[in-house]
């Protein structure tokens, strides 16, 4: 899919909470660390943070990099599986905090871990059709895993915002995108349930790997390209190993995914995961370089994007905190504090 008019990312913003819990601290409580862990650590939202607050900061960073006023936005769309309210949009709170005009589209997207890239795809369509000049797409989550479950080691928090606008103003132009979905019950959470259920090994080959391979290879085929044509690649990262394996299956090298692979340090930030990886790449990418991004959402599907970095990146990326600034401010908490903050203690 390509928009009628050229569009691109005119601003981007990352947000990662300050707090971390080491995977071995979770393992200490539940398994006595009998066995390996899927990441080194995961990010933990502070007690005053949620999907809305993280979206606000990521959105502010994106606006600063774009150099536009919030009043120029025509849409604020937030993808998450942890919207603070079941009914009451996150988008309106975030729009108010950013200071947009009331004459915008605000909506919450939901598609497990790819809700953020869904919002990105919709923004590309809105701007690319000429209906709007600027649209803000955000992926944000404060993910929860059942205590002791394999997911608890990785379910993390973070946000990433992409401000989509005219290609002529872009830091990175959108060359093409493609989505692939199928009804695959690898992971779900029923209404009113606090923790999701997953299909263990079923989340791998028929779910994550199949959707990512299908979307990524179809997009490359459509463009007549191969993995070697791209400087960087970013895949959804539910743990350290899955994106490494997906990259290998598709023919990308470890070097191509290294910059955008944040999961070892912060875990799986769900709707933010692929987008935060993209932010980390945009923090260092040079004009002319190309980025291949593929998200994954359970249930299931993948969105793939090809981006080309422009000259504007060099001056604008310094205007807001780099992803590395958020990664560097890590402060570790123990399981007791984490359990209290995350509402895992039922009294």
């Amino acid at each position, binding site marked *: 899919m390509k928009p009628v008019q050229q569009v691109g990312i005119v601003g981007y913003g990352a947000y990662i909470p300050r707090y971390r819990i080491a995977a071995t601290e979770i393992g200490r409580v539940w398994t006595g660390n009998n066995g390996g862990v899927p990441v080194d650590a995961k990010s933990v939202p502070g007690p005053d943070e949620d999907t*809305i607050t993280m979206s606000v900061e990521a959105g502010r960073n994106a606006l600063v990099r774009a150099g536009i006023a919030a009043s120029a936005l025509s849409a604020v769309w937030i993808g998450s599986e942890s919207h603070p309210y079941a009914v009451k949009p996150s988008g309106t709170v975030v729009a108010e*905090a950013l200071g947009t005009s009331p004459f915008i589209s605000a909506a919450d997207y939901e598609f497990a871990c790819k809700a953020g890239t869904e919002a990105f795809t919709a923004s590309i369509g809105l701007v690319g059709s000429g209906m709007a000049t600027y649209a803000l797409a955000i992926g944000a989550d404060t993910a929860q895993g059942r205590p002791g479950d394999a997911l608890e080691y990785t379910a993390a928090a973070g946000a990433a915002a992409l401000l989509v606008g005219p290609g002529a103003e872009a830091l990175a132009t959108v060359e093409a995108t493609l989505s692939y979905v199928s009804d695959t019950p690898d992971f779900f959470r029923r209404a009113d349930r606090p923790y999701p259920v997953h299909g263990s090994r079923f989340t791998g080959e028929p779910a994550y790997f199949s959707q990512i391979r299908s979307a990524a290879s179809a997009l490359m085929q459509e463009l007549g390209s191969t993995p070697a044509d791209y400087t960087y690649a970013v895949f959804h990262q539910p743990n350290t190993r899955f994106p490494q394996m997906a990259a290998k299956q598709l023919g990308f090298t470890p070097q191509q995914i290294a910059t955008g692979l944040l999961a070892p340090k912060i875990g799986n930030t769900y709707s933010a995961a692929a987008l935060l990886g993209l932010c980390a790449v945009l923090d260092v990418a040079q004009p002319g370089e190309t980025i291949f991004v593929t998200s994954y959402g359970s249930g299931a599907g993948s969105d793939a994007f090809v981006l080309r970095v422009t000259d504007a990146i060099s001056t604008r990326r310094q205007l807001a905190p780099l992803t590395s600034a958020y990664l560097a401010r890590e402060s570790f908490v123990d399981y007791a504090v984490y359990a209290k903050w995350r509402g895992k203690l039922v009294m």
Partner: protein
Amino acid sequence: MDLAKHWRLRGPRYRLEGQRHVETGEVRFPPEPDAGASWEQYDLQGAGTLYSYTVVHQTPDGYAQPYLLGMVALAEGPLVTAQITDCELAELQIGTPVEMVTRKLRDLGEDGLIVYGYKFRPRLG
């Protein structure tokens, strides 16, 4: 549930919406109702320095115990009292550069609002 009160305060709380005098350029926060034509809406940038701070141990219901409370001298002039977040007491001193962040102030329970508003943290980076 004070729905109307929280709704009225959303501008100042979420993004430091204050007022600026159209002739003198004086900036004030919080904004005053019915300010007249001499004052226009003005969003403060949220950058400032810590003027003073303390630790609140005896906290009202619904607040973390303890929490850090600061007086922040904003770049535009006003002095604002707010919680300081994302840091430990030892990281603070008078003059520490801080910046506004929008965070959860209160959670009014399963059938209540989540109230968002400004706090400050040591400036990132």
